[in-house]
């Protein structure tokens, strides 16, 4: 932590959108923290985006509403934005800039860490291969989350991704180890009611004491949203790599983050990229997503579940598109299932966890996991084809085996996929349900599972 004071400048050349241009500035540094003082004495925070020719462009996190060229002062603090971290942050609720929002004092800091983090040395990265149990069958069974993985949830506006996010945050745990587990939850640009739901949900389930919440609500200035995921990840990295905890970071909604980035880019008059987002959106997103991982010789891990709502459910939109390039798979929330009232409405045919294969099987979940998951995936895919066919020729035109697959599809959605928001299923329960679905098929249709597992788990009805 820098303890030197900073110089305050009073020559404001221009105020444009979320940016303030300060004149006659010497010795300012890129990313340096700036304290803006209004004529009324109100203080706001910002950071230097550009310096040169005696000018500094400052991005004001709390917005520039109410600022005027005369009377506004900018103090260059001489340090980058830092987050005070210690074990005391667990069980606390902060705003989007990392200030306490629970009426309690600032936590006593153990360290002050630059919120931009330090890039992980690729050489030091350890391959993620340990299972995280979310208690949500469809995730644990078919798109297993692994410690150190980044697995986004692609959703659409109005769908139940926030319920799912809260459920994962409440239920997630590491199985088969006594290592500490923590959840860092960052809400970006969510409605007040949603923020309150997240807070109450963790508090009432008793999960708050192992969680840290960062809540940036929709009425907070959009620019704050640039900071929220960074402070959250800074805390996560500290808990993981300094205190040796396994940390699950849930960030919702990354679309709001990208919107804030677009706003700043437009104010800076940068050449827009696809749909007006800056050309560096991919690079910027990677500076967040790549903060997930495990390091050789360190005990903890940072796992990320960023949630983003796809505008118009368009998976080719720049935000999900670029996210998909960086992350290790995706969980897609389906509009059709949502309309049918299925919760969680996850479309498994569009979803995938690329690291699942390394996190399941003997020693982590169960030896038959991979095979039974593949068989169910295959059967559900076939059931969808049969449903489409039934739409044309009618049920009467289907063969007996087609009808069995149709039944498999229905059972899958009603008994496996559908889960109460407070239902925490163990991996054993999830696997039992998967076998229940497989057992609806005649044995000769089971082609992806070894005979010994079929003998052991198949129960004909």
């Amino acid at each position, binding site marked *: *932590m820098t*303890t030197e*004071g900073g*110089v305050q400048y009073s020559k404001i050349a221009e105020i444009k959108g979320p940016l303030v241009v300060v*004149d006659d500035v010497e010795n300012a540094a890129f990313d340096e923290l700036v304290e803006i003082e209004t004529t009324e004495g109100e203080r706001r925070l910002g950071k230097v985006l550009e310096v040169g020719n005696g000018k500094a462009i400052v991005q004001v996190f709390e917005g520039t509403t109410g600022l005027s060229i005369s009377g506004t002062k900018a103090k260059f603090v001489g340090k980058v934005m830092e987050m005070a971290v210690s074990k005391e942050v667990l069980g606390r609720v902060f705003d989007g800039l990392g200030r306490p929002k629970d009426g*309690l*004092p600032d936590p006593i800091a153990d360290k002050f860490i630059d919120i931009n983090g330090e890039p992980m040395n690729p050489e030091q990265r350890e391959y993620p291969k340990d299972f995280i149990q979310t208690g949500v069958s469809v995730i644990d069974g078919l798109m297993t989350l692994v410690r150190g993985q980044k697995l986004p949830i692609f959703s659409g506006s109005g769908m139940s991704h926030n319920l799912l996010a809260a459920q994962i945050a409440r239920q997630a745990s590491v199985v088969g180890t006594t290592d500490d587990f923590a959840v860092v939850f960052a809400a970006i640009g969510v409605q007040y009611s949603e923020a309150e739901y997240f807070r109450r949900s963790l508090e009432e389930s*008793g999960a708050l004491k192992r969680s840290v919440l960062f809540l940036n609500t929709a009425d907070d200035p959009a620019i704050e949203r640039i900071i929220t995921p960074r402070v959250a990840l800074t805390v996560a990295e500290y808990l993981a790599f300094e205190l040796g905890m396994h940390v699950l970071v849930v960030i919702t909604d990354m679309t709001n983050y990208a919107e804030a980035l677009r706003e700043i880019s437009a104010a800076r008059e940068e050449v827009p990229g696809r749909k007006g987002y800056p050309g560096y959106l991919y690079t910027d997103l990677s500076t967040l997503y790549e903060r997930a991982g495990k390091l050789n010789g360190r005990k903890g891990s940072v796992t990320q579940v960023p949630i983003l709502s796809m505008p118009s459910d368009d998976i080719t939109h720049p935000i999900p598109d670029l996210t998909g390039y960086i992350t290790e798979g995706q969980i897609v929330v389906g509009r059709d299932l949502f309309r049918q009232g299925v919760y969680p409405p996850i479309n498994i045919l569009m979803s995938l966890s690329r690291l699942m294969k390394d996190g399941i099987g003997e020693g982590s979940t169960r030896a038959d996991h991979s095979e039974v998951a593949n068989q169910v995936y295959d059967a559900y895919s076939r059931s969808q084809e049969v449903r489409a066919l039934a739409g044309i020729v009618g049920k009467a035109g289907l063969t007996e085996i087609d009808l069995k697959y149709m039944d498999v599809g229905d059972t899958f959605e009603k008994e496996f996929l559908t889960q109460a928001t407070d239902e*925490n299923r163990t991996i054993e329960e999830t696997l039992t349900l998967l076998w229940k679905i497989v057992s609806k098929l005649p044995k000769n249709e089971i082609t992806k599972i070894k005979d010994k597992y079929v003998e052991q788990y198949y129960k004909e009805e």
Partner: protein
Amino acid sequence: MASNSALETTIDKILNNTEKDIHSNIQSALSESQQKLEDSIPKLESEYDKIISDGKKEADKIEKQIIGSSDIEARNKQLMLLEEAVDKVFTKALDQIANADRSGDYSNLIKTMLEESTQILGTSEITVFTNAKDKDVVQSTLSQFSGAELSPDTIDCLGGIIVKSKDGAMTFDNTIDARIERLKPLIRKDIASKFGVGN
């Protein structure tokens, strides 16, 4: 008479047959229900196990909720108490600083502050502001800084100086208040460690 006895025999036969039928029906119903009862035992047992396991899950959940919220409540109370104690230490320390003797090393402190301020602003063409109590000390030290002048206006602070470039474009707050504010997180940590927190 003969026809009567034949009728009676027929009636007896019918009664016997009916009785046999009823007996056999009762017997088969009995064995059927026994079979059903036997068959339902594993189902009942699994239902029973499910109810017990669901109940256990629910109990675990409630236990976690109770322990979690009471832990949080206790921790929050501890935090508030600690903050109260830290505030008391701060108030007392600030009081002592405000009433400290301005002779001796204090003029050296002001000199260091002025040197630091001119260096950071990059100019010695400055106007210096201080509080009424430090005015004399600052005035006497300013003679060593050409181009620096003391403002007739005083400021409200514990001690130290605010330095402004003469064109008014740059200001550097080097008051004791500002220094304490900057160092507050570190001072809080030190005070808290004296109370045994964060060690």
